[in-house]
């Protein structure tokens, strides 16, 4: 059996899946001040009366690292960067403890300036006196030649708890993003490590010793140890959880908008033939632009608990949430209260809900029913407007999905797939006010936890081959090998594939789930003085994010059940 757990802003959802489908589901309130207790409580609930030895693995999606970044609660981390000519490295400073040192590589990985070891030692000494324990080391073009990063790392490793070399984070270009990504990994490392080790120990105490996986922002998972080295990959995994919970129910072929309607926000994403659309380069969070691959999602401050008010004679919904709906003891009217007045929901304090809506109705000069109708209608229309806005934003740039780059493609979704607590109420109204074909994800209120449980372990590998220098390197894997200058693109692809397989299995993938894609393959003749001197081959491959192969059947069973 598999446990899937997704921590949300309001609720934490947890499910237990087996070959027979959804065995059990639970929801607990998220205590943002104590996520650890939230998770432990949720797991206790779901495993009640379950033999812990039957748990095959657990997948967690948490807001831990996201919150740490958004709330500015990062641990201090040091940085040593080698830049060389170009934009001044101070432009990319991560704050205190940021130390540019001499040393430079060119675009083809040739050293143009040696690393100044004295500067490195001075920087290390300064960081030590500043009490720094975690240090990122990043060089411009380190993905073409990581030698400088490795040298600096070797020099300072004995003096720090952990050193994070930039070339391991991604095979993509962009020195500034490499700096931001490496810094975030270093700065959330202690928080992430302490937290998940505590979770692991707590599960072990309960006899659950099966492997733990962490959901990534691109909808894949990574094993516990990988997450310790690359905690940045867990940032913004929340929206990915609901997208992965929806993919099995999107239409194929067709373009689908996924709307996860929560209490505070609605998270949106797009699927093309059941394949999620990615952000073009990587996550952007606060001031950080990173290399961390993520699904293209949009979060808007519109949900069941959004505060409703009249402002300058206009009906305004959200983007803030003052608390729960008045029907559940809150102080401000919300769209959920409107649903109470319309008689679509029960099980709360309907009288209090009506009291709230009546305040709005009085200001509008309308009946409570009319005000409720307008509040709910406006909420639905605002959500659809935001969805259109997201589609426009995606179409303004090249479209990338987790499978491929769609050059020049313009998406035009015709299908709306809704999930989240209030989904059933919204579903009907969306249908009446739009041309979308609207449907609801089965188990809509825990589909995010199901998505978390069903996601595959994924990873990427980038391989650069320079036949002139007879060398193949895969920076993320610290792989560097001499090659025959006559190596073909197909042989290079096979080499990349082998590296990818090794990496995937090491990071916890199962052999059934190793569906791979070539994301990029380029081959250039290198000509100098009118002579062919070699070829430049570049290959990027991935294990495709998706549902676990043997679990697609489960997704179908959940659908039918």
């Amino acid at each position, binding site marked *: 059996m598999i446990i899937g757990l997704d921590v949300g802003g309001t609720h934490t959802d947890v499910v237990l899946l087996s070959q027979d489908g959804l065995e059990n589901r639970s929801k607990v309130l998220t205590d943002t001040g104590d996520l650890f207790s939230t998770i432990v409580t949720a797991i206790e609930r779901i495993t009640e009366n379950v033999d812990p030895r039957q748990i095959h693995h657990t997948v967690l999606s948490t807001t831990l690292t996201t919150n740490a970044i958004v709330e500015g609660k990062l641990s201090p981390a040091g940085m040593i960067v080698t830049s060389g*000519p*170009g*934009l*001044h490295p101070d432009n990319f400073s991560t704050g205190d403890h940021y130390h540019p040192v001499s040393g430079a590589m060119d675009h083809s990985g040739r050293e*143009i300036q040696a690393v100044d070891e004295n500067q490195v030692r001075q920087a290390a000494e300064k960081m030590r006196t500043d009490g720094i324990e975690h240090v990122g080391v990043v060089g*411009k073009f380190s993905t073409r030649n990581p030698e400088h990063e490795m040298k600096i790392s070797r020099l300072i490793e004995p003096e720090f708890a952990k050193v994070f070399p930039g070339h391991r984070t991604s095979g993509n270009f962009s020195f500034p993003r490499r700096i931001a990504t490496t810094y975030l990994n270093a700065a959330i490392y202690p928080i992430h490590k302490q937290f998940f080790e505590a979770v692991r120990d707590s599960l072990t105490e309960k006899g659950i010793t099966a492997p733990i996986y962490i959901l990534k922002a691109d909808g894949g998972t990574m094993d516990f140890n990988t997450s310790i080295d690359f905690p940045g990959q867990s940032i913004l995994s929340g929206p990915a959880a609901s997208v992965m919970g929806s993919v099995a129910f999107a239409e194929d072929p067709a373009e689908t908008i996924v709307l996860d309607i929560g209490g505070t926000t609605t998270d949106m994403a797009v699927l093309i033939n059941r394949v999620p659309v990615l952000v073009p380069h990587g996550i952007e969070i606060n001031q950080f632009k990173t290399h961390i691959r993520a699904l293209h999602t949009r979060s808007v401050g519109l949900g069941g608990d959004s505060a409703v008010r009249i402002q300058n004679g206009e009906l305004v919904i959200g983007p803030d949430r003052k608390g729960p709906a008045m029907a559940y003891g809150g102080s401000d009217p919300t769209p959920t209260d409107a649903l109470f007045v319309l008689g679509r929901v029960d099980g709360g304090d309907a009288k209090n809900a009506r009291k709230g809506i009546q305040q709005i109705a009085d200001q509008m000069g309308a009946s409570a029913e009319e005000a409720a109708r307008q509040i709910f209608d406006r909420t639905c229309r605002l959500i659809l407007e935001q969805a259109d806005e997201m589609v426009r934003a995606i179409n303004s740039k090249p479209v990338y999905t987790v499978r491929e780059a769609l050059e020049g493609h313009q998406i035009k979704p015709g299908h709306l797939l809704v999930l989240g607590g209030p989904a059933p109420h919204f579903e009907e109204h969306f249908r009446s006010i739009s041309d979308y074909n609207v449907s609801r994800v089965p188990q809509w209120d825990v589909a995010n936890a199901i998505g978390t449980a069903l996601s595959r372990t994924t990873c990427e590998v980038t391989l650069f081959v320079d036949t002139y220098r007879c060398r193949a390197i895969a920076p993320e894997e610290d792989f560097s090998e001499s090659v025959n200058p006559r190596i073909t693109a197909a042989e290079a692809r096979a080499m990349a594939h082998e590296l990818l397989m090794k990496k995937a299995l090491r990071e916890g993938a199962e052999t059934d789930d190793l569906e791979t894609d070539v994301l990029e393959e380029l081959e250039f*003749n290198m*000509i100098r003085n009118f002579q062919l001197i070699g070829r*430049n081959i570049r290959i990027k491959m991935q294990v495709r994010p998706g549902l676990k192969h043997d679990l697609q059947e489960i997704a179908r069973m959940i659908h039918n059940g």
Partner: protein
Amino acid sequence: MLFAKHQTGLVFFPAFDWAISPTHPEREERLLYTQDQIMEEGILDIDGIHELKAEVVEIADVQRVHFCVPDPWKVMTESHFISAGGAKTTGKAVMNRSIERGFALVRPPGHHAMRVVHGGRGFCNVNNEAIMIEYLRRTYGIRRVAVIDTDCHHGDGTQDIYWHDRDTLFISIHQDGRTLYPGSGMADEAGGPNAYGTTLNIPLPPYTSQEGFIHVIQEAVLPILEEFKPELVVNSAGQDNHFTDPLTNMNFCAQGYARMTSLLKPDIAVLEGGYSIEGALPYVNVGIILALAGIDFRYVCEPDYNPDSLRQTKEITADVKIACQRALKTWKNREAMREKLIGNKKVDERRCNIFYDTDGIYENQFESLQLCADCSGALKIDSRADTGAHVLAVHIPTNACPRCIDIANQWYESANLKKFDAIYLQDRPEDAYRIRKK
């Protein structure tokens, strides 16, 4: 935080699948390292820098400028349509004010492509800048445009297209034609009688360095621009003046290119040549982009840059000064020269022999220009190539007066089809392109 003082748009079209031949300087690999450098510097993430997607130019855009023989499809590949489209996209974005400045990093290049096109010359088939400019004139109603060609080779194609157009100021700065392809671009080439002085050539001696180039910009180009008052400044941004370029003999550098760009402040830059693909292009292009955007470019430099070894001699400095003075003199005397050249003549005729080095074609042109005080003048070109093609090309300029329109139409209607494979009419006031064929 890093941000662009000027909203700057970039169009990339590196044509990774197009080459003249496998080992030719104009090959797939040419912009590879440049693209790597731009990506690695993170330039596209800078606030105020925007990547735009190149569109494909339409046939009408090409025929507004060129007479393609026998037709555009025979002389253009898909890459040519997109490369010119990249310039067009950039120009549109500037005119729509979605960006303040733009740079089309595109290939194949275009500044050696002339008005009549039988094939490729100097690695160029169609003129990207001219196709963009004439589209912008048609769509946005602008008139006065300046093209500053800073490629190391004389921009003879652009010169040919604007030879009779007094609304286009064309200034080419290049290595002296006595020492480099295409051999033209002497100081006395200054435009046809109707437009004398709006074509200016500033040939520079080999081994001119930063000092010389900056002198030309500050002492000649900027004062002339100031007087011409263009609505749009276009830079044909060739990068083969670089000290490492394998085809040329100049001593220019990345810092110099950036400095020159920041002085010139072009609205639109369009990449032309530049064949030092590893040692120059990555750094020069980053320098130009930062300069356009108004971002500090002081730390951009080539790995083997040594300013002391690149200093120009006193003799070069003196020659550069003289070249600037000649251009300024031509510019000042342009009105008087026009009167003198026109005199009592009604028609001006010239013969040109054009060699298409890339495709190995020879062309003979016999050109007749209607001399006119009121417009750029009706133009007729009888063109014969050793491919066997023989065509008559008639051009009515955008600003044509009624008399010149009548004359050109008459030329087109009355030409004897037995003599030509095709007779073309480029009717700019009507924005039409007509063909008479056997």
